[in-house]
């Protein structure tokens, strides 16, 4: 089909811009796409997409899962294009396509793995036309941008192409209902032996049956609304779907997944329930895509969690554990609170959760901290909570409302001052919860903690 001249001008212009930006040591992951989409808004309509396009979306876990899928495909010989270093909205994806396409708008590589922001689905999915779409979950996210799960569900549902094969979370009664006519494979996690489910979350995004409005009856929940449920109305057939790939237990750092009546074992990057879901999502895709158990197992043995999301080291004789807690995302942040509460030993918690990106322009809407389960941090084993940042006074109130003893809370105006208030006596672990935009402060905190080794005893 003949393409408009503006499409070719966009490609040429973007390629020159990308080269110039790289000469200037700038990453060209967003701006070229942003400019060319202004120049030609229909740009994305005209690419001849690679033979295999895999899109990964969802509220939480999409970055990890798309990285896992990309690694699995590459280690099995695929030459992939992916946006692991770029934006996941239309401008970032346009930049990626413009960078990798030929001058005619085709691609030399035959496989593309795209992380797609769920809010941007309408501007991306109809044009990249994914052969496969993995949706990790749909959960409550930034109230400002994402409103609520029903809103995001409707956007996705209206924009998934008819032929796209879906990999869906069977334990999520929201996303598992996407595009009901499309072919689908479900993954999930059974109630695990010795699992202590998180039943005390503030948020449960689906409580009543979308078909008849009756109350849903959960047989179990891992956290929030993620679990197995059915409608309490005996004349209604709504309930969790049949799961094709189900984690039944973890053993020696491996997930044991039942598929077609047989056990498959895959190395886990970590032992949290969210890591299990991410692993299961990636494995379900890879196996459904046609890779053998042995191929996927071998690839998964090399998978590691990106260091910026989870890290640990020792300082002043204490184990320091760092977790990305994603500010303004109450479900993700609650997951980290739950992780902190489940860690053994006496703990001190440093929190730097302020959304500095939002804070540059306006005053952060802190409503989300009242949906986040800070109640998980009121246990006696959490000896100190130190909050740093402009919104520290808000966190003080929130923690008091959560039932945390006032004597255990310290608030300071600057994130980088938190270490000064740390009392290491009687503490086994220092847990740091940080927002993505607080990496600079995190690095300073890490350096200060590491410096405690050389002058141990100075901070007590």
């Amino acid at each position, binding site marked *: 089909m003949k393409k408009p001249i503006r499409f070719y001008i966009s490609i040429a212009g973007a390629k020159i811009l990308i080269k110039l930006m790289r000469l200037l040591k700038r990453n060209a992951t967003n701006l070229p796409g942003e400019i060319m989409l202004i120049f030609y808004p229909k740009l994305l309509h005209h690419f001849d997409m690679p033979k295999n396009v895999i899109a990964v979306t969802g509220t939480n876990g999409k970055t990890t899962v798309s990285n896992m899928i990309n690694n699995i495909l590459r280690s099995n010989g695929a030459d992939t294009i992916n946006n692991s270093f770029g934006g996941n909205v239309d401008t970032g994806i346009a930049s990626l396509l413009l960078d990798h396409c030929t001058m005619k708008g085709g691609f030399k590589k035959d496989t593309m793995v795209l992380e797609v922001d769920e809010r941007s689905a309408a501007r991306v999915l109809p044009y990249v036309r994914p052969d496969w779409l993995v949706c990790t979950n749909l959960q*409550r996210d930034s*109230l*400002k*941008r994402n*409103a*609520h799960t*029903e*809103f995001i569900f*409707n956007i996705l549902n209206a924009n998934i192409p008819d032929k796209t094969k879906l990999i869906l979370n069977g334990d999520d009664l929201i996303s598992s209902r996407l595009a009901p006519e499309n072919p689908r494979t479900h993954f999930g996690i059974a109630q695990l032996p010795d699992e202590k489910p998180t039943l005390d979350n*503030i948020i*449960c995004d689906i*409580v*009543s049956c979308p078909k008849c*409005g*009756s*109350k849903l009856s959960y047989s179990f929940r891992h956290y929030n609304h993620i679990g197995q449920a059915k409608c309490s109305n005996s004349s209604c057939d709504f309930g969790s779907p049949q799961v094709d790939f189900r984690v039944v237990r973890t053993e020696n750092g491996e997930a044991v997944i039942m598929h077609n009546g047989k056990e498959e074992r895959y190395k886990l990057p970590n032992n949290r329930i969210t890591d299990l879901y991410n692993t299961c999502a990636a494995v379900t895709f890879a196996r459904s895509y046609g890779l053998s158990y042995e191929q996927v197992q071998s690839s998964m043995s090399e998978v590691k969690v990106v260091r910026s999301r989870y890290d640990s080291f020792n300082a002043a004789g204490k184990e320091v554990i760092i977790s990305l807690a994603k500010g303004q995302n*109450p479900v993700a942040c609650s997951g980290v609170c739950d992780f902190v509460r489940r860690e053994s030993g006496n703990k001190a918690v440093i929190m730097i959760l302020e959304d500095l990106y939002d804070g540059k*322009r*306006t*005053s952060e*809407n*802190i*409503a*989300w*901290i*009242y*949906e986040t389960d800070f109640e998980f941090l009121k246990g006696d084993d959490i000896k100190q909570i130190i909050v740093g940042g*402009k919104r520290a*006074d*808000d966190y*003080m*109130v929130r923690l*008091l*409302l959560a039932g945390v003893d006032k004597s255990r809370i310290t608030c300071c105006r600057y994130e980088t001052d938190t270490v000064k208030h740390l009392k290491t006596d009687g503490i086994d672990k220092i847990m740091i919860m940080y927002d993505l935009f607080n990496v600079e402060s995190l690095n300073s905190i890490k350096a200060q903690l590491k410096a405690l080794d050389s002058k141990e005893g100075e901070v007590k």
Partner: protein
Amino acid sequence: MSIVIEELFPEVCSLFGDGANMKYLRQCLPEARFEQTALNDRPFFADNHVDMIYMGPMTENTQLQVIKRLKPFRDRIEELIQKGTVFLMTGNAHEVFGKRITDKDGTVTECLGINDFTAKRDMMNRFSGLVLGNYEDIEIAAFRAQFTKGYPGEGLVPFVKMTKGVPMNDDEFTEGYTRNSFYGTYLLGPLLILNPYFTKKLIKKLCGQDRKLAFEEEVIKAYNTRIADFKDKKVGIH
């Protein structure tokens, strides 16, 4: 007689941390009786005395269900408003009590028709931002995030006369409305925690006397920090 506060449909009408309003009020009024009514249950106010009714924001589909559930009690709600019962309806909850919601595509949702209020909704445009202004002699500082613009009619008094922020429509620099002790506001989230002086006024309406709030010192400190932040010219409205 102890104060009775009813929270309507908390399982589906607390999208943005709004449940914290009642959690906080419980700590401020430990002697009060709190009733939670689920969407499929008969409202407590239908057959009993209540001093206050609270409902928080909900999805657009839930609005339809809530209108259906409350329709049989329309006259009772009107009676309670006339009597001076406190209603606090945050986020889009108050739209349910208005006349109608009109979508951009022309679809009209008929609401309870109790208050002279209409809303226009555009699901492709979410507008959000901070709100700073005055209610009587106090300053209100809070946030909005919504798909609708609201238009109050005759007989409704603006809740907040704004000094900075994003108003609820393009014509007036106000936020929300009051009618007797009915507070309808698009402000969402932990409104009562963010605005301790408003909470004190509300509690005085309920108890007839001034009361010390839970964590009053800390809540007022956070409020003062936010007011100063909002007033800072470098702080944008969204």
